[in-house]
């Protein structure tokens, strides 16, 4: 192969090529990350200090300082949605974890057809959240819905229960749909954890005369905790997928009774076209995501340390 000789000022070519190998190797990843993560993040952070409206592109240069942040900080509807989102996350994640754990323990005991069961377990995850939203909106409809018709036909209720209107029932209905859709995520991850548990400690516990509950509580569960915390950390971020579902089922209503951060921010940004303000609310809510992630990772680290798996 013939290398063309280029007449360059002394040493310039060498200087250009002398990037450290680790940087050269990481460069594609860095560039891609910058393009798809960092630049949009910086742009949205910048726009949160402007009066940017989607329908008025020139408004992105209209710097308004911390106006959007101050507005969000003073907006009681925003903080109510914030608190409701924390409550919703706490209830949904804990119940999903409990049901997922139960499901995984039961499936792990099945000796025949376990593969089929595992596949069936994953069915709800395969539905798009929009479809799940429509499905449960119909199921919980007070007039023509499945639940009320069943309750009335069975003589268990003589009134139309407003599942999607009453404050507590509406949150319950949304949580129910969310739990139905995502419990299997916990189920699958915990099942993987169950398969990874070494049998020796369990057998030793049996020999020492432990009851089934004691074996589960003091042997199985500690082994499962890292898996549970990983699932929790993933789901605490992933639960925002429920936006579509909540949007279809109640759209945050009625009277803001089921307003979550996602419906509020989505409506502000895309329907009202106030992207600057929506981004400011988004950045405040990021603290929520960071808090949950840090919390679960701390828990994960201590659970691993307890098992002697290092910090």
């Amino acid at each position, binding site marked *: 192969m013939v290398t063309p000789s280029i007449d360059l000022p002394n040493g310039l070519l060498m200087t250009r090529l002398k990037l450290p190998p680790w940087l050269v190797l990481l460069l594609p990843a860095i560039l891609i990350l910058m393009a798809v993560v960092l630049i949009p993040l910086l742009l949205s952070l910048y726009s949160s200090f402007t009066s940017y409206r989607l329908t008025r592109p020139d408004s992105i240069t209209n710097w308004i300082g911390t106006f959007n942040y101050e507005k969000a900080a003073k907006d009681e509807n925003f903080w109510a949605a914030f608190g409701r989102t924390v409550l919703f996350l706490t209830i949904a994640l804990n119940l999903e974890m409990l049901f997922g754990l139960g499901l995984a323990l039961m499936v792990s005991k099945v000796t025949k057809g376990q593969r089929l069961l595992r596949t069936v377990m994953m069915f709800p995850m395969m539905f798009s959240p929009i479809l799940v939203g429509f499905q449960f909106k119909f199921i919980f409809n007070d*007039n023509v819905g499945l639940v009320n018709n069943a309750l009335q036909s069975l003589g268990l209720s003589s009134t139309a229960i407003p599942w999607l209107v009453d404050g507590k029932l509406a949150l319950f209905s949304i949580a129910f749909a969310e739990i139905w859709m995502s419990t299997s995520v916990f189920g699958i991850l915990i099942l993987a954890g169950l398969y990874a548990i070494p049998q020796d400690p369990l057998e030793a516990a049996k020999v020492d005369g432990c009851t089934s509950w004691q074996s589960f509580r003091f042997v199985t569960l500690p082994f499962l905790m890292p898996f549970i915390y990983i699932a929790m950390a993933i789901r605490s971020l992933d639960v925002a997928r429920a936006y579509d579902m909540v949007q279809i089922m109640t759209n945050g209503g009625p009277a803001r009774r089921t307003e979550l951060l996602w419906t509020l921010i989505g409506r502000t940004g895309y329907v009202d076209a106030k992207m600057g303000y929506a981004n400011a609310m988004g950045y405040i809510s990021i603290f929520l995501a960071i808090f949950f992630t840090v919390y679960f990772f701390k828990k994960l680290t201590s659970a691993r340390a307890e098992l002697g798996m290092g910090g």
Partner: protein
Amino acid sequence: MKFFAGGAGLAALALTTATGALAAGEFEGVTLDAKLIGGQQYEALYGRISEWEAETGGKVNVISSKNHFELDKEFKSDIAAGTTSWCVGSNHSSFASQYPTLYTDLTPYVPAATVAEYVDANIAAATLEGRLVMLPRAQFDVSALYYQKSLYSDPAKAEAFKAEYGYDLAVPTTWKEVSDQAKFFTDAPNFYGTQYAGKDEAIVGRYYEMVVAEGGELFTADFHPAFNSDAGKRALAWFVDLYEAGAVPPGTTNYLWDDLGNGMASGTIALNLDWPGWAGFFNDPSASKVAGNLGVAPAPKGSAGNRTGWSGFHGFSVTEDCADKEAAASLVVFLTNEDSQKLESAAGPLPTRDAVWDYVTEQAKGDAFKSETLAAFQETAKTAFAVPATPYWIEATNLIYPELQAAILGDKTIDEALADAEEAVDEMMQENGVY
């Protein structure tokens, strides 16, 4: 690509469109990208696009087909990203004012004689700040009162009603009568007197028309909120009273159009204010339990003697950045011309051309249900009104509807809810520099 040159070109275009004829091959080589509303009831018309292509030599490339709420988001993203070089877009009178920079003024491309063939009120609503931003298709919407006929032919019911309310039971002509009858007919949880759209823009639209029927207005001429008035309070009291009386399904504050339509078709609702597009569905025995028992009356009047008549219509617009606006305008005129409107309105939707109104009225003769439906909607259309022409209409509705819901559900009193809504809208308008 063939371009028109100056005034001569426009004159030639004016001549061809004014006569409804298309010059053969005049847009040879032109390709128009279009973003059109999708859905069964809208797409029959698009079959005619191939006729326009055959006549003019142009090509139409439909690059997006979604419902209007999704299209709305896409248009906003396009404006933000500057990707607005596509040519023809579906538009709606309730959305149009949000896109002040997206669509071009059609006046230079459509002759005045052609514009005059459309219903004046529709053209007025399609003209924003003196710019004709869309041409209306045969998808005009105003609501009339659907009711179950059998309720009015039962002598026992008539007698009981008169004893309770002191006047004869007849198809209601006022909203007070609707309220009385709704309470009278209700037999919860199996049967309800009426229902209403309870969230989003839908409930604000319903509230808006009730405010007008009560003699008030939603906004002043310079868009200050004006609904926190006696008329506004009376209007909201109508919704609150029916909810408190249990005369509407308890989930009504979560209902949108599909829920209302399915509720009426399930036979569990006595009176239902709804759009013309539902008439065929409600009277279809395979889909609806009220088929054959369905009456349609003009929208009732409020205490001020005004009929409710919140209306809207679909149409087509041409983007400002379109490379060939003449071709795009030609397509828009074609899709809203007499033949196109006859085709669309044959399936039930209401036209927006005077000549086609006459045509559908003539066609409905001999079909009692169709004639009754058409007469009811035609009467309501006479006093129909569009949403206030402000780019902040949707944003205002998003501030108003949670407060209306709060009053209906009893979280706030009517006074508190309207005061809070007024304050929020006032702040938003000031923030946007409206006043």
